[in-house]
């Protein structure tokens, strides 16, 4: 801010001078701002000038580097065709100019090239899209160029609908912000001051006040905001709670198309939860195979041999150690043999570890131990990176590497602090060692019990550690104890205790969801929801622990575990409500962009849908619980309930699909076909989708033949060719011959409201080409800028195709079908079915050829004609 001193001196005077001073002040400020603007523009232009100079010198070099010599010396032609002398001195305003008529004797011909029919550039769509809001032409002026005059014509639709100028929020410029800020800071927020300012800038007082508070916020809490923004930028991270993550999922994922950012149904659809849940996917535990090396079932088989090993270790027979290790190793390898191809990273790491212990015992050198510790973390990192790539060969290689590094690293002692740094966030050693004892005791207690699978695994790890301890004790290296242990716990099989404290809120919530979905099946939960995050074993431990912490099952002795879980859940509860706010806000913004809550346009569609050609009704899933009553929007709207509705399957308003056995649903005997719907494998009993010979485990064949009424759904379409029509403009042609009633393809386009369609229709009528197609009571398809080749199929009153609106998985779509046998490379025509008084001149039937206009089946679709 300029001249702070003079500002403050005027401040003392202002109370006396009042408003007069204020106006003066405002004008002063304005002048100042404007003067600065002039300077800033000059600066910008000057800067730009320098840039241009630079650019030009570069351009100049490109023009002069051409050193091609072509036939003529003079450049163009050996001799100019003609020279026209001028007036070297130049002529004045009034001097008569004698113009030279240019008549050239020789001119080269530009040979004729076949023109193509006119079209507007369009984008291919394989699926209908709802119009994005910025594509609307309603309330916008459209400019045309009149070929006959030399001037553009402006066509505004203001005659019919008052363009409501959206009360646009005033965008404050920096200058205005400055005036606002300076004045209010100096003169306070008195009513007079606000009025004066709002008048001066020319906007409402409320906006001025709003702006001031925003500015205040901006200046005061600048840092805070930046911080918030930074948080906003982050994607879905593990730190977020599940509900926060699901919030964006709910807003962006289309449950009907099963994809994100669906262009057909839009974002922020109303979330409909099915009222009846599917039963758990339960399998008998007995005949279940271990899901991976980290399956809790696997651990169960391990525990037997391990427990023996642990006991041995506790007894502390140093001579036995190596043999025990080989034992464990053997078991591990044995496990691998059992589940081939399922090597997991940690497993491999573990194998290395157990192997590595051997050289240690034989050498028993302090320094090498540190090297091992280091190596451990290294290899485990490696194995993490390589994931399952580590196989037996690899582990052998790793073993070799280790030996090598052992030799090398004897000199290079790794500094202790590196190790400690690498093991951040792991509980302090004393707590741990204390727990050790507990764990071992537990282990002894529970060894016989079959339920304590997981515990024994952790005990196994402990046993490893113990082995280490023993070795180290023998080597008089007490200090390194915690480091060794930490490095192990980092790279090794995670212990139950350590892991449960590392369960992030989102993992816990995912786990709970998993229980909801799969029941208490740790294999499925780990595989489907926590893959890459937690192993089956961890899930199973967590499951046991969390259930044991529940009052009715409190048997487990581990109070430490209970506590950590509890603390964590508390933490989760605190976290949850704080985060989603931001996300939800983002979701709402999206909603604005893709708002598809187009209110019905009864007056307009009635006009179009009058007569007996009843137009289809747009389906919107209802969220009714169990049975649909009178309040059900589907019932109210006159549509059936579909599989996307919340209501129960036994809802009376549900469309029940067909039970066709042999007819292949190709005739009106099929209830789906008769209702203008495609069959749905989710709903119909015998309609199935084949995708192989059964070797891939797809659902078994249910009917006799494949259903013939899912052709839009399965995109069983014909190859359509685009070429110059034999009739007018472009035309659609067929590549291969088809027989009667064959499906040719879909007429895709933008879904627009009827109101929008009427507006666009007027524009298109001027260009005399329309690609509008009535879809249902809410929407019209417009293929003008987005569509597919079938939009070029021409109208005929004696066509070889027909269009039909089909309900496919809750959406209306337009299919084009063969009305008769069509030969390859024939042009396709269908009846646009304009109403008798709506048809443009070229689409009217010639007199006398009155075909049975009324007898055409009512399901057939018609092109949209605006009024």
């Amino acid at each position: 801010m300029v001249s702070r001193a003079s500002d403050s001196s005027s401040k003392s005077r202002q109370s006396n001078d009042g408003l007069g001073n204020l106006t003066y002040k405002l004008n002063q400020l304005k002048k100042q701002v404007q003067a600065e603007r002039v300077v800033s523009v000059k600066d910008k232009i000057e800067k730009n000038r320098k840039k241009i100079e630079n650019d030009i010198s570069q351009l100049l070099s490109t023009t002069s580097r051409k050193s091609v010599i072509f036939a003529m010396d003079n450049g163009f032609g050996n001799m100019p065709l003609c020279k026209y002398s001028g007036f070297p001195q130049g002529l004045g305003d009034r001097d008569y100019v004698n113009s030279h008529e240019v008549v050239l004797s020789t001119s080269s011909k530009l040979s004729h090239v076949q023109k193509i029919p006119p079209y507007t550039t369009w984008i291919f769509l394989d699926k209908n899209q709802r119009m994005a809001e910025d594509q609307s032409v309603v309330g916008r002026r459209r400019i045309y160029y009149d070929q006959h005059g030399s001037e553009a014509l402006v066509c505004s639709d203001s005659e019919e609908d008052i363009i409501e100028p959206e009360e646009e929020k005033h965008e404050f410029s920096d200058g205005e912000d400055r005036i606002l800020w300076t004045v209010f800071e100096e003169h306070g927020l008195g009513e007079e001051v606000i009025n004066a300012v709002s008048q001066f800038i020319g906007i409402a007082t409320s906006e001025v006040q709003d702006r001031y508070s925003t500015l205040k916020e901006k200046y005061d809490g600048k840092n805070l905001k930046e911080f918030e923004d930074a948080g906003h930028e982050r994607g879905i991270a593990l730190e977020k709670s599940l509900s926060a993550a699901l919030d964006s999922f709910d807003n962006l994922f289309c449950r009907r198309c099963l994809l994100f950012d669906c262009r057909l149904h839009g974002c922020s659809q109303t979330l409909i939860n099915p009222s009846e849940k599917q039963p758990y996917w339960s399998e008998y535990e007995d005949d279940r195979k271990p899901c991976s090396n980290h399956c809790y079932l696997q651990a169960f088989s391990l525990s037997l041999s391990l427990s023996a090993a642990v006991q041995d270790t506790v007894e502390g027979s140093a001579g036995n150690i190596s043999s025990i290790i080989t034992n464990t190793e053997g078991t591990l390898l044995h496990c691998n043999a059992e589940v081939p191809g399922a090597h997991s990273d940690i497993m491999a790491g573990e194998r290395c570890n157990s192997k590595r212990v051997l050289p240690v015992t034989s050498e028993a050198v302090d320094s090498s131990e540190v090297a091992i510790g280091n190596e451990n973390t290294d290899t485990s990192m490696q194995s993490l990176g390589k994931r399952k790539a580590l196989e037996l060969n690899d582990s052998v290689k790793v073993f070799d590497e280790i030996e090598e590094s052992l030799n090398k690293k004897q000199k290079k002692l790794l500094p202790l602090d590196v190790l400690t740094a690498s093991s951040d966030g792991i509980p302090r050693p004393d707590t741990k060692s204390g727990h050790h004892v507990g764990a071992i005791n537990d282990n002894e207690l529970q060894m016989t019990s079959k339920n304590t699978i997981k515990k024994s695994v952790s005990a196994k790890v402990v046993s490893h550690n113990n082995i280490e301890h023993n070795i180290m004790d023998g080597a008089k290296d007490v200090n390194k104890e915690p480091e060794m242990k930490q490095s192990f716990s980092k790279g090794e099989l995670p212990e139950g205790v350590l892991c449960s404290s590392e369960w992030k809120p989102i993992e816990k919530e995912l786990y709970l969801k998993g229980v909801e979905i799969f029941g208490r099946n740790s294999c499925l939960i780990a595989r489907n929801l926590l893959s890459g995050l937690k192993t089956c074993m961890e899930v199973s431990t967590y499951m046991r622990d969390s259930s044991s912490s529940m009052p009715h099952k409190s048997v487990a002795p581990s109070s430490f575990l209970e506590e950590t879980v509890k603390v964590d859940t508390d933490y989760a509860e605190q976290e949850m409500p704080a985060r989603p706010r931001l996300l939800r806000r983002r979701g709402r913004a999206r909603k604005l962009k893709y708002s598809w809550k187009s209110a019905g346009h009864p007056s307009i569609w009635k006009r179009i849908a009058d007569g007996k050609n009843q137009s289809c009704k747009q389906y919107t899933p209802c969220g009714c619980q169990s049975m649909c009553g009178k309040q059900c929007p589907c019932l109210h709207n006159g549509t059936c309930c579909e599989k996307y509705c919340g209501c129960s399957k036994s809802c009376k308003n549900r469309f029940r699909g067909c039970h066709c056995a042999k007819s292949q649903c190709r005739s009106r005997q099929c209830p789906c076909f008769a209702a203008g719907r495609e069959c749905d494998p989710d709903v119909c009993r015998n309609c199935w989708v084949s995708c192989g010979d059964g070797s891939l485990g797809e659902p078994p064949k249910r009917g006799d033949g494949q259903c013939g009424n899912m052709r839009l759904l399965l995109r069983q379409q014909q190859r359509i060719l685009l070429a110059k029509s034999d009739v007018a403009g472009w035309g659609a042609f067929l590549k291969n011959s088809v027989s009667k009633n064959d499906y040719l393809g879909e007429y895709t386009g933008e879904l627009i409201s009827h109101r929008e369609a009427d507006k666009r229709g007027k524009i298109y009528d001027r260009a005399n080409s329309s690609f509008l197609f009535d879809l249902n009571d809410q929407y019209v398809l417009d293929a003008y800028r987005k569509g597919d080749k079938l939009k070029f199929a021409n109208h005929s009153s004696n066509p070889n195709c027909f269009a039909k609106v089909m309900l496919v998985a809750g959406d209306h779509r337009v299919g084009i079908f063969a009305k008769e046998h069509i030969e390859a490379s024939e042009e396709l025509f269908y009846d646009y079915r304009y109403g008798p008084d709506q048809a443009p001149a070229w689409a009217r039937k010639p007199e006398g050829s009155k075909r049975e206009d009324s007898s055409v089946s009512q399901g057939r679709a018609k092109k949209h004609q605006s009024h």
Partner: protein
Amino acid sequence: MARTAIGCEPLVGSLTPSKKREYRVTNKLQEGKRPLYAVVFNFIDSRYFNVFATVGGNRVTVYQCLEGGVIAALQSYVDEDKEESFYTVSWACNVDGIPFLVAGGINGIIRVIDVSNEKLHKSFVGHGDSINEIRTQPLKPSLVVSASKDESVRLWNVQTGICILIFAGAGGHRNEVLSVDFHPSDIYRIASCGMDNTVKIWSMKEFWTYVEKSFTWTDLPSKFPTKYVQFPVFIASVHSNYVDCNRWLGDFILSKVKLSVDNEIVLWEPKMKEQSPGEGTADILQKYPVPECDIWFIKFSCDFHYNAAAIGNREGKIFVWELQSSPPVLIARLSHAQSKSPIRQTAMSYDGSTILSCCEDGAIWRWDAIPT
């Protein structure tokens, strides 16, 4: 458009000529009666800076400006289709530096003429409607862009005859595209404008591999995997009416906007909004008024150094603006008693000392700066 906010006011040039430079008529040619829509100097090859081309009707003519107001007619081409009406022409060249003329018009067919052997090099069929402007990439003069009534802008390789990119679709123009221009130094960037009142800036950076591929393509041009660029990097709806000519001035954009009676050339700075790509605001820096210019399709031109711009009007007058002074200065206002017909386009020579104008009545006027 709403009133300008305080602190965002543009600097408006005064219509009083500074007489820094004075121009006088030195020649006038009459090329039939059909309107001439374009005249353009060759800025591609320094040996031919004095060569210019005009188009009108189904004719393309090449001239040379000589000393003493003399104009020599060098070559002439006539389209066999009498219905053709060329709207635009641009100089280009192949990779060997052989100069090409690229013309297009109502038929929507782009004609590429090899002027070294006076033969048609190639014809590009693809646009669905008439072509309103063709411009050449100055750094790679084998690339041209065309703006069409079919609502698209297309990038072509004149050497191989390939349509490389189509700038249209979801974020594209909603009505005729009237003008397009390459950024002078950012090779990826183009700006287009049209009847939908918007100026759009497009980037082909992500598609540059296709541009390179187009030079080595040996198969049929129709088999080239032409790509759609659907989203511009910037959309400015700063104007409340159609924009029929735009040019880059460094990183700023000059666009000619229709007002009620007078038109004006506006110099503005595109300002991207960080949060929402594609959306942007325009900071209007300067305005260069052009009186009596309220008809459609009048284009301005700049000299090679972008020091000045010349634009004709409905009454046959020419306004020469100093572009890079702040505030803008009108260098000269050219008028002649016999020049009454609307001037569709002007051409400024390399150093700005010669100004050509082509008119609705088929006349070409040559104006030369008087040495002072």
